[in-house]
């Protein structure tokens, strides 16, 4: 038996830990790659300007997708606005849970797809959008729907769109830096290299190691952050509805539904309640679960069952 409040607090702590280690890693990697790049070109400086340029480029790309996240996603997914009468349960459940969570009512959309799924996006609670498929709305009862909407509203309340955008910017930063480093060392083959002593050579080697490994490590931590936020949203959903059974049976149904969602792609996968790109392989080994945006449904159900 886990207290709901404790469960939410524990998830927040773990989430903070993952995010802190992520930022620490990014800082370290950016520093060494930039330092190596500077040493490679024989600059006197620490190469901070490379980090600056990469941050601006990566930030600019992600800012657009973050600021217009609500509109871009909806354009991609081909959704229609939800209607109180036609989508009674979806509409009123969201209304009621917003009341409990103290959030403004998000815009609601329905995707016409028999695959069962739902997602939340938008840069802040005022611009939040929650979207559900017709498959989800028709196959879940009201209690189960409350669990799913509670999960999505928790993503909104926890500013997960903002968090994941920042994480994406930082992953883009080290990926760009690593890419520049590898290109520079590959194409110039040392022709522009000047004498800069042993210290410079060491920085070039360290930079090379970071340039090769950082993008993949950063991506793995990004996925760990994403999974951590899913657990947090599950726990916060239970805190809203006080009915873990609703979310448990909804997740069981969602897990049994093997149909992939046509409107989803890799860029939007982390927003959904369950991975919309799921394949047919049911069991997930330790290694392949590292590359998942969502924790395995069985683990999520087990965690929720401890709260009953």
């Amino acid at each position: 038996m886990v207290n709901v409040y404790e469960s939410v607090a524990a998830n927040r702590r773990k989430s903070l830990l993952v995010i802190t280690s992520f930022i620490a890693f990014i800082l370290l990697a950016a520093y060494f790659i930039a330092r190596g790049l500077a040493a490679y070109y024989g600059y006197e400086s620490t190469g901070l300007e490379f980090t600056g340029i990469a941050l601006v480029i990566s930030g600019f790309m992600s800012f657009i997708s973050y600021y217009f996240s609500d509109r871009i996603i909806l354009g991609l997914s081909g959704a229609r606005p939800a209607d109180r009468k036609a989508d009674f349960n979806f509409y009123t459940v969201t209304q009621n849970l917003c009341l409990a969570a103290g959030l403004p009512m998000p815009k609601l959309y329905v995707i016409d797809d028999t695959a069962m799924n739902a997602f939340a996006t938008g840069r802040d609670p005022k611009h939040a959008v929650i979207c559900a498929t017709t498959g989800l709305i028709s196959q879940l009862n009201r209690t189960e729907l409350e669990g799913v909407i509670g999960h999505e509203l928790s993503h909104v309340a926890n500013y997960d769109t903002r968090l994941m955008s920042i994480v994406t910017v930082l992953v883009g930063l080290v990926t760009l830096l690593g890419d520049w480093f590898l290109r520079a060392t590959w194409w110039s083959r040392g022709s522009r290299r000047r004498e800069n002593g042993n210290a410079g050579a060491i920085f070039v080697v360290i930079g090379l190691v970071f340039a090769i490994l950082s993008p993949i490590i950063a991506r793995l931590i990004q996925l760990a952050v994403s999974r951590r936020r899913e657990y947090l949203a599950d726990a916060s959903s239970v805190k809203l509805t006080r009915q873990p059974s609703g979310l448990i049976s909804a997740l069981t149904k969602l897990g049994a539904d093997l149909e992939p969602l046509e409107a989803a792609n890799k860029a939007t996968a982390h927003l959904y309640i369950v991975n919309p790109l799921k394949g047919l392989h049911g069991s997930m080994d330790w290694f392949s679960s590292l590359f998942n945006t969502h924790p395995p449904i069985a683990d999520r159900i087990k965690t929720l069952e401890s709260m009953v």
Partner: protein
Amino acid sequence: MNPIFLLGIVAIAVVVYVIGVYNDFATAKTRIKASIQEIGNQLKRQADLIPNLEESAKGYLKHEKDLFRMLTDARKSVQSAVSSGDLGKLSDAAAKVAELLPKIQVVVESNPEIKGADVVTRLMDELRDTSDKVMYARRTLIDLVADYNVKMVTFPTNLVANVFGFQPEKGLDTPSTGTHLEVSSAETRSPKVQL
């Protein structure tokens, strides 16, 4: 560094902290008041809604006299509770509406003719929704009061609360003794369902 300067920084930090905590308490109190109003607001909505539902479902439910009487009863008690403005009465009235729902469901399930009627389905949907809304409005009050009262008793925010004379909030009035906290021996036996 000058010790007086250092002391000054500490003093400023303490003052900023105290202001922050004071504002937290004041904000929480306002939110709690607003959430009580929200319960009233939802009950008012319920009181307005039920006569309309009553009217539209009349034709389909006229044979179910008992059910109809309960619906009318629930409406009346909600209306009188709203006009009296007493939070305790409001809660009683909301409980009546919540009790009504399973009874209607039984009647509807046993009668395929009215089960098919859109009007009745809508009546049930709306009744469930309105009692959910009242429940969630109360949940907000309970959660806000719990957060507020935790701060009242935990260190160091309790010091600030004492200095400014904040009092614990009562929240949803529930008797702390009575049958709802006891388990009778009949209730300990596992229930048998006979169909």
